[in-house]
């Protein structure tokens, strides 16, 4: 889980390092021309690293096989923490009330059973495909968002892209200019990384295992909490990142395009159902979307936020109340420019015969179609540019129409 101890942010490191540095570019960029319709579109890409459980985020409660497959962590429409019904079939995780509100206001949509063209289950390769926009792994020179930026008329509607985080995510790397902003100078190792390391040490180096465990415990004690998970911090960090990015994007001469990544979605064990680890993370994501909405102010009207992950997780839970690496999952869209209030899906069903390789939700929609739809709706990129430059050799994945209002 993402661990970001707030008081630490204030005491032990520089809170924010915005080098005033990089913003000179705007001084001599031409004025932003508005499109004929007067819109000034903005696009935010949020990458969830670790592969999100789409069946837990937007649960197909109406599918008769769902409850059995997802077992102890399946969401239900009733009980102490009822899922939020989006329509008669799909229900949203209860820790996402803001997204539910946007959905009801027609400003949020879900695309279900989506996947990139990648069909194996390595995080590294899956993330390459998701971000590079190529059909296979190993292409890490540039990302689709940067190439989209490059294809736009310079200085007309959009300027540099904003990379949020300590490095530019692959999706925004390339020839087009980008600027960077990171909310923290020395990111704390998150709990998930620490636990993986403790586990390795337990097997290979007991002395280091005990030292690291104690070190982690000391830190928890110092920050006023014992070894309990600290949902507030993950949530706070995601909100903080979104707040800063939204503020930058809200400026008249601010970047129109931004990319950021949230870690920690690799829920192999104790994933949790309506409450628990995944619930905390989804709550953080929900808060981040709300921050974008409030931070962008009237710009929210022209904004699309695309939330995507490298692949989904197994339909059936594993032996440790978690899920392993799978295939199809959800993509979330939020923003005033989204034609929302819908779950878009060609639902494949969860019967054993309908699962991909008898274990994963089967992909029926290409994620590239969704992203192309958003890019076309926001910036008017042509089918050809999208099929050849932004997502090379992707003509078969046609832009999804009508995503943007």
């Amino acid at each position, binding site marked *: 889980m993402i661990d970001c101890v707030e008081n630490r942010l204030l005491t032990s490191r*520089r809170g924010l390092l915005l*080098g*005033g540095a990089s913003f000179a570019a705007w001084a001599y960029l031409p004025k932003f021309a508005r499109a004929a319709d007067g819109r000034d579109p903005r696009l935010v890409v949020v990458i969830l690293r670790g592969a999100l459980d789409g069946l837990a985020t937007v649960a197909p409660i109406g599918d008769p096989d769902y409850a059995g497959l997802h077992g102890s962590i399946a969401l239900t429409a009733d009980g102490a923490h009822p899922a939020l019904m989006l329509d008669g079939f799909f229900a949203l995780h209860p820790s996402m009330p803001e997204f539910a509100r946007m959905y009801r206001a027609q400003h949020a949509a879900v695309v279900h059973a989506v996947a990139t063209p990648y069909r194996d289950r390595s995080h*590294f390769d899956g993330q390459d495909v998701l971000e590079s926009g190529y059909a296979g792994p190993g292409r890490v020179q540039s990302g689709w968002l940067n190439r989209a930026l490059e294809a736009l008329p310079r200085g007309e509607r959009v300027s540099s892209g904003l990379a949020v985080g300590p490095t530019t995510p692959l999706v925004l790397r390339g020839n087009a200019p980008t600027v960077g902003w990171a909310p923290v100078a020395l*990111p704390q190792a998150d709990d998930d990384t620490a636990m993986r*390391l403790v586990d390795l040490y337990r097997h290979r180096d007991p002395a280091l295992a005990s030292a690291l465990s104690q070190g982690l415990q000391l830190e928890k004690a110092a920050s006023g909490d014992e070894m309990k998970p600290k949902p507030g911090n993950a949530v706070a960090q995601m909100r903080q990142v979104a707040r800063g990015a939204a503020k930058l994007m809200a400026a008249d001469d601010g970047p129109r395009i931004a990319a950021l990544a949230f870690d920690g979605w*690799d829920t192999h064990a104790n994933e949790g159902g309506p409450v628990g680890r995944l619930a905390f993370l989804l709550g953080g994501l929900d808060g981040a979307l709300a921050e974008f909405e409030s931070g962008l102010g009237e710009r929210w009207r022209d904004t699309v936020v695309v939330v995507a992950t490298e692949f989904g997780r197994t339909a059936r839970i594993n032996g440790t109340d978690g899920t392993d690496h799978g295939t199809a999952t959800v993509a979330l869209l939020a923003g005033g420019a989204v034609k929302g209030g819908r779950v878009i899906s060609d639902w494949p069903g969860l019967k054993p015969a309908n699962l991909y390789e008898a274990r994963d939700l089967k992909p029926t929609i290409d994620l590239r179609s969704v992203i192309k739809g958003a890019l076309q709706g926001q910036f008017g990129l042509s089918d050809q540019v999208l099929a050849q430059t932004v997502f090379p050799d992707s003509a078969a994945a046609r832009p999804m129409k009508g995503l943007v209002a």
Partner: protein
Amino acid sequence: MARDSQAALVALNRFGFGARGGASGDLINAASDPRGFVKAELARPSGVLLEAPGLQSTPQLGQAVFAYQDQVKQAREAAKAATPAEAPPQAPADQKPGLRRNLSLNMVATEIAGQMAEAKPADNKPADAAMKPDGMQPNAAAPVAAKPSPQPLNVIQNTFRAEALARLQRAMMADCGFTERLVAFWSNHFCISASKGELARMWAGAFEREAIRPHVLGRFADMLKAVEQHPAMLFFLDNQQSLGPDSRAGQNRKRGLNENLAREIMELHTLGVGGGYTQEDVTSLARIITGWTFAGRKGQLGAPGSFAFNANAHQPGPQALLGKTYEATGLAQGEAALADIARHPSTATFIATKFVRHFIADDPPPTLVARLRDVFVRTDGDLKALATALVDSNKAWQAPLTKMRSPYDFLVASGRLLARVPEDPGFYLNSLNLLGQPLWTPAGPNGFPDTAAAWAAPEGIKLRLDIASQMGARLGNNIDPRDLLEFAAADAASVETRRTIERAESRQQALALLLMSPELQRR
């Protein structure tokens, strides 16, 4: 010859700074001839010397400090003499709090930075572009004045950083790093602390270049003499203040001995505690080395900042030390005493033990210590022979890898594996401060500890993980951690480590886990 990855791990990690990434082929080279790989550097004695553009001699550096101190003093006096400042602070015309419309990006930037930024310590200058502790991206455009520019560094800070950078770059580029590890070992054995004052900070790097490096593959007695006569050591252990009570200066100023340097020479540099010396020997050695000092800013004893023997401060008369009498021969009295201490049997045992503890095991195998002690005695303190004997011993290759890398070793090894030669030492200096091994600044004259217990402490490991995560976050984007594991350990990596890397959630996480893996932490 058959490739032996396990022996390559020993060659690179126990003796060196770990394999470099990229196309270095270090692991393969080490695997095909592990002993030869380590010893190759011993065959290039001049390669130990460090000469980089801009690095100056101790007298030059001393004069620069004196000049800087004069400037500061003059500026302070000028400020005092001047009338109180008449110019009111300039109010920025374009800052109106609460303004929301037409907000410019620079204003937003300034505003967020003002809310969240903390003061930045002087040594926290942005590091090597990819490792800098800053939020800026490498492909960002040119700077604009959105935040106040930091105070320019003074000559002392700049010198310290230049010396640090030269040392780091050398460590990053060495094939194996054995001689650089030897430099670090001897530099820590004969440590000074940069925290002693401006001169010590200025001289820390020069001390190592001038007193340690030329003798790392030479004779112990020569290193000992160079160290104890170096202005940095004389300043660090207060010998420039020590006056023979019966010397002319002692009589005039009614001051006398300072035993600091004499005690540490015997306790820490040569014989070791319990090495057979008494308090009377300490006092006697202190008298013997009175007058060992450096020329001050006025240059009365020689070029300012150079070693000088001040006969006026030297205690007259013969002195008895460790059962032998040293005649009153001025500077030569102390040099003769040091030469004898250097070949004392206790010195051989002390050095051999420390040497084996550093390279092989916290509890040094007695047979190996005995063998190295014999080599030391037989060769009259030939340090190249000592190093060679260590590499030749089978124990050195068979002992389990239980030593913990020090923070310095860990950071250098990480930089090497990531194939990054720093252009700025900031990241390393900051990280060393954080991990409790500030460069050239140990807490006492006994140097930094050399045992796993010291460096595997809970808080230290947790902080190490934070730093590894930081490196992962900054650099993980561009590398495949599975490749790095091959460069670092190949088939000597454990199944568990391999699996942990492969199953990581992201490249960033995998890189952090790799840097923290036992294969990279133990040596």
